[in-house]
């Protein structure tokens, strides 16, 4: 029970209607009964008759996402995503994929990645950026921020895999470790639609140093105790490359799959993030060619 993330437990949505469901504080406390730190954090949260105050939860999570964005910025996450998207887009364009190429960010939160790509990504005028998340408050904040900076990106309160039209490409950051057990192959199964040509999912790279590194950075950079707690748990729960490849193979066998960016060149230093790349077999050759000097960062295809 110690590897649960608080932010997962204080929110609940009906997966079909996306309606917000009430969350009982006592039930959350029960789940964290073996985790004193998490118990302290949850106990301090506002409730009305044992139901967590949804407005307070929303404000808290918007603030936490703002702090998470700081780490993403420090670790150059926008650049990292753009570096991988450009060769993927080049491969799709070479094969004459239908335009616009729709990139959907799954569980976009406050939309940092897409907003960064809209501001600096230089992905081309034929690319449409769409963020989807279940949480209306986070999506509302993403829309507000995008409007404030006049960025060409849209955000929806939606299941990313039920958008119409669907994504040509799906991406996510720090999302896939939330899918446990059979939910992980099921997540990949959602990608397996004719219109979808590729996916790229970024998450923490598990390594012996990852829990300490994550603890250090969250202790130094984060202010909110919830952000500190969940950040460390995320690094502990992250899947290895082999686990991701296996689950993606089970769920989306129509894609060829490989891990990208697990090591720092020839150095035996693991990166903070790795990414799972999946694409239709007919685009593989063009993608590898478009990677150019970064080809060595790509692992074995599965």
């Amino acid at each position: 029970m110690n590897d649960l993330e608080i932010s997962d437990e204080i929110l609940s949505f009906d997966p079909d209607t996306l309606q917000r469901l009430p969350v009982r504080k006592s039930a959350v406390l029960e789940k964290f009964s073996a985790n004193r730190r998490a118990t302290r954090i949850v106990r301090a949260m506002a409730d009305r008759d044992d139901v967590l105050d949804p407005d307070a939860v929303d404000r808290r999570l918007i603030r936490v996402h703002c702090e998470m964005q700081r780490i993403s910025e420090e670790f150059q996450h926008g650049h990292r995503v753009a570096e991988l998207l450009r060769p993927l887009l080049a491969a799709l364009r070479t094969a004459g994929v239908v335009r616009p190429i729709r990139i959907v960010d799954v569980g976009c939160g406050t939309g940092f990645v897409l907003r960064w790509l809209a501001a600096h990504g230089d992905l081309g005028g034929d690319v449409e950026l769409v963020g989807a998340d279940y949480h209306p408050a986070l999506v509302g904040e993403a829309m507000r921020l995008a409007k404030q900076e006049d960025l060409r990106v849209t955000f929806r309160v939606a299941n990313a895999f039920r958008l119409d039209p669907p994504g040509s490409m799906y991406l996510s950051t720090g999302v896939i470790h939330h899918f446990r057990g059979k939910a992980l192959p099921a997540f990949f199964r959602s990608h397996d639609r004719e219109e979808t040509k590729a996916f790229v999912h970024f998450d923490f790279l598990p390594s012996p140093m990852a829990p300490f590194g994550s603890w250090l950075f969250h202790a130094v950079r984060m202010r909110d105790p919830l952000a500190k707690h969940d950040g460390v748990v995320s690094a502990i729960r992250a899947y290895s490359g082999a686990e991701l490849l296996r689950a993606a193979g089970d769920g989306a066998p129509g894609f060829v799959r490989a891990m990208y960016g697990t090591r720092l060149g020839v150095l035996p230093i693991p990166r903070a993030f790795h990414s799972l790349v999946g694409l239709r077999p007919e685009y593989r050759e063009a993608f590898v060619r478009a990677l150019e000097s970064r080809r060595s960062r790509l692992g074995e295809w599965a």
Partner: protein
Amino acid sequence: MTLLLSTLYLLATIDATLSGYSAAAGRSALIRKGPHFRTAMLRGFVLGQIAAAISLSLLFAVLNAAPDRAVFRADLLRVWMRMLQIYLPYALTILTAFGFRLIPSVDVRCLTSTLVFGPLAGIRPLVGILGLVWGVLAAPRPEIVAGGSAILILWLLIEWILGTSYRTSESTGLRSER
């Protein structure tokens, strides 16, 4: 004396300016944050000048009150010299990392965070204390210990003070949580 004091002042000013950055980091979710950070660093710089003025006033007050001014002055020089033995390498490491940060490589920039900015930000208060202790060991006079501790506490509080305005606006939104 002027050179040592100027070096300490310069390091303190850089520290306060970067404290402004640190206090503002993670508090704006915009993508283009140039104005946000410029304002924050200016606030850090200005607060640093106020703290420097308070520190200097305290220093000269203690110096003037000392019965053995020449000896006290010599003691201060030895203390400052030793403090710089700790503070200068720390500051130079950070400034060098900023140099590497200018290289347009995701990997190099991430390494500066992983190896330098993160760990060194974490030990900053310890470095402050270590520098003072190491310095004071050269001349452990009560007035130097007391004055040095007061000034160090003042500098370590700068980021917290700079964060006050952000916390106030955040707490308005979170009041119902308490």
